[in-house]
């Protein structure tokens, strides 16, 4: 194939615009820019939080003030003025709504554009959706069906009101406020998020999903998710994000905490498609997320699956602490970067319990002028017998201006551990494209086919509905109208 033609196709493929860019015009109730103890007190008061929450926030804020933004990541981040951010913003809401018709038509229209089934389709799709629009939960559905089983699935603020004992017991146990700069910031100012509690012996009958969406201009969104899975239970949780097109960078620092007890299993899937900035690297979301789960009980299991296509800067390492004997964790990730996007993402697997197992499959795809890094840690503690890890990190490069980097860390302190890591970096083979061409598939389709095939291993691990969406996202991110 002629080189020019290939370049042209690559250009077309990589130049498609963000499809989900729009701003919903809803009145926002915000508290002005800046961050200090008064603001934190105000956030806490607005949310009518009990005292322990305020103390938690203030403690986190005081610690945050002593910390510096980390610089070790392979990212080039312009300086962030933390006083120039609105830390609280919620769509104005009058009374609690009972039926779908009562939901603000603007909000509904937004979700319709996103293709979120917030009406009867949902029942058919059997998905309970707890929609977070900016910071407050707008509508929680399927609550009754879940309540029957004793499952709690609600917004974080509701949980603070209704289940303060559970929040107090588990919040901050997996990601303590001192953990890192962004975790401390989130702990101080987090606005809302989701709370999931699965009681002992319950298998959650449906996939729980939350759509996060950054909306108001200049609003950092700081959600916090807490999932607690009691013994012998199971839940699959989906998190998906899209954000409207904006010129100014928006800051996003979330925390996800997952606690998995004896013999239970949690699947946590993410599709992240926030605004990545335009072709020239202007605008886009800064995404600094701390996600961590602890496999506390014996034979517990935690799976992370993520498709990352959005954000100007991604800084994200979903991690698992394998504490219970025989516990296991899997991490599957596809990260796509295009134009001027930067991603430094990976995972941490901390083996503490005996006979713990972890698998890491990471696929990075870089295009345009982007940089895509895998950074991961596999640590086997000294007294952890029989740990097993397998890691595979592959990178695919589309174009000669992008970068793909791999920074694995293996820290092994026990002789019985078996740890393997391998990584490859390559571009789409001309022979692969030739093979497709030969069989009548044109080059643009061939690239799409190869990229999708490359990511299949990860996408297959996602729940059905998500897998479809994830594939679409891959196409949008890379293939544009080519399909």
């Amino acid at each position, binding site marked *: 194939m002629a080189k020019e033609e290939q370049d042209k196709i690559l250009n077309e493929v990589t130049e498609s615009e963000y499809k989900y860019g729009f701003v919903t015009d809803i009145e926002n109730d915000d508290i002005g820019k800046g961050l200090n103890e008064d603001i934190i007190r105000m956030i806490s008061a607005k949310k009518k939080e009990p005292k322990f929450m305020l103390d938690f926030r203030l403690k986190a804020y005081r610690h945050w003030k002593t910390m510096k933004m980390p610089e*070790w990541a*392979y990212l080039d981040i312009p300086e962030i003025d933390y006083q120039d951010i609105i830390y609280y913003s919620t769509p104005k809401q009058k009374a609690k709504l009972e039926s779908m018709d009562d939901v603000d038509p603007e909000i509904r229209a937004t979700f319709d554009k996103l293709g979120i089934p917030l009406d009867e389709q949902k029942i058919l799709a059997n998905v309970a959706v707890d929609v977070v629009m900016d910071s407050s939960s707008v509508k929680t559905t399927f609550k009754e069906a879940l309540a029957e089983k004793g499952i709690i699935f609600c917004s974080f603020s509701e949980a603070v009101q209704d289940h303060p004992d559970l929040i107090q017991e588990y919040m901050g146990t997996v990601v303590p406020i001192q953990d890192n700069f962004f975790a401390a910031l989130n702990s101080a100012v987090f606005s809302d998020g989701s709370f999931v509690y699965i009681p002992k012996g319950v298998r959650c009958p449906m996939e729980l999903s939350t759509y996060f969406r950054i909306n108001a201009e200049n609003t950092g969104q700081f959600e916090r998710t807490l999932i607690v899975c009691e013994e012998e239970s199971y839940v699959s949780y989906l998190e998906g994000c899209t954000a409207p097109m904006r010129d100014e960078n928006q800051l996003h620092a979330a925390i996800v905490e997952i606690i998995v007890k004896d013999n239970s299993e949690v699947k946590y899937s993410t599709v992240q498609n926030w605004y990545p900035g335009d072709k020239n690297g202007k605008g886009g979301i800064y995404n600094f997320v701390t996600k961590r789960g602890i496999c506390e009980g014996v034979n517990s299991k935690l799976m992370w699956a993520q498709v990352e296509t959005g954000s100007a800067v991604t800084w994200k390492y979903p991690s698992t602490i394998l504490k219970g004997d025989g516990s296991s964790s899997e991490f599957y990730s596809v990260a796509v970067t295009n134009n001027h996007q930067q991603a430094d993402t990976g995972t941490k697997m901390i083996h503490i319990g005996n006979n713990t197992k972890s698998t890491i499959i990471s696929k990075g795809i870089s295009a345009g002028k982007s940089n895509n890094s895998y950074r991961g840690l596999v640590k086997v503690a*000294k*007294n952890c017998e029989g740990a097993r890890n397998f890691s595979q990190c592959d*990178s695919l*490069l*589309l*174009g*000669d*201006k*992008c*970068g*793909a*980097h*791999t*920074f*694995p*860390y*293996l*820290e*092994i*302190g*026990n*002789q*019985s*551990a*078996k*740890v*393997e*890591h*391998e*990584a*490859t*970096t*390559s*571009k789409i083979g001309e022979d692969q494209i030739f093979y497709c061409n030969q069989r009548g598939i044109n080059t643009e389709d061939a690239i799409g086919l190869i990229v999708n095939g490359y990511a299949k291993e990860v996408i297959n691990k996602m729940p059905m509905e998500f897998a479809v969406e994830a594939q679409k996202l891959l196409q949008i991110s890379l293939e544009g109208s080519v399909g």
Partner: protein
Amino acid sequence: MADINTINKDFADLFNQGNELLLEGSSDVMNETRKNAFQDFSKLGIPTRANENYKYTNLIPAFDHPYNVNLRYQNVDVDLNEIFQCDVPELDTNMVLLTNGWYYGNNKELTELPKGVIVCGVQEAAEKYPEIFNAHYGKYAKTDEDGVVALNTALAKDGFFIYVPKGVVIEKPIQVVNLLRSDRDLMATQRNLIVVEENAQAKIIVCDHTLTHHKYLTNSVTEVNVARNAIFDLYTLQNQHLNSVILNSTFIRQESNSNVLSNTISLYGGTIRNNHHVILDEEHCENNTFGMYLMDRDQHVDNFTSIDHAKPNCLSNEHFKGVMDDQASGAFAGRIFVRRDAQQTQAYQSNNNLLLSNDAVINTKPQLVIDADDVKCSHGATVGQMDEDALFYLRARGIDEKEARQMLMFAFAHEIIEKIRVEPLKERIDELVDKRLRGEISKCNTCAIACNH
């Protein structure tokens, strides 16, 4: 325990108070480089574990000791040529000795070297061959990135200098033996320069030995420039005692079509840190970087390497293997850079480790930083134990377990040894490693002063 600021201040004092001695006998170029390096050191200081590149090696205990420093050549009271004899019988080399980082004053003349080849001390070279020396000295070792390198450059007085002129092929390897012999605890700073010109070929073996049991800290930096079409081998054999600290930084620059093989074998030493940096600065270079470390007791080894593909069409192969026993700790960091437009690069990296005890620790960081798309790069790292099936196979054939384990370990290590391109040396190292794995302390010399460690 002294904190890092005290240590850094001590070095600053040493530099300022000993300035006269430092400048004496060194050429202007050396002193100019020294001045800049000291400024860098003032900024960087001795790296602590907060420094990502020294995450796994704590240098504070290594530096926190009242060492003596020789800022001028000390005469040796005995003839080292008499005391030291390399016991590799078939290993016929051109041997020179260095003592405590200084080029030994009574080295025998190397009569068998081809015409034009220069082997001498760095101070001498700076004076006698300024054209060659000044073109290369301080050009490859970057002082603004690593405090240890900056410190070396600031304090460097002597070391060995080897020059291989255009088209000259040295058949017999040149063997450089670094001897540490002192009646007091000593910090030695050694600065070496190797220049291999176009179409030349040379093999250099560097052996480190301690002749007395005192605590030593060696901070050595070697700069190597390999010109077009040249072939160069560098073998480093580290065999000191448990109370020593080796900081060994090597910077290799390669020009087009050059071929470099380096093999670093760490047999013994209290704390060993090898910084190995290669830059493939022109097209069609080939680089092979190998290393092996066999550690037991509470020894520590850290191999920190970077291979920089600055230009297209180069090939690099990196392979490090280690066996860790007792409370030994080890680290490996390998970073492959592929610069923008360094297309058609092939870079492979691998690190395998055997852990033999529950107290041994290994930390490995195999990294790829790739900014070009038409490349083939891979890396892999494994940590594990011996293959139980292989063990069973041997046991089934009547070999007892201990012997079988040793055979497997030996086979594991042999993969690196067989890369050595000097046959007698390969055999000798084979034997040394074999002995070492059997738990016998191997001595590679029959020197009169055997240390007890």
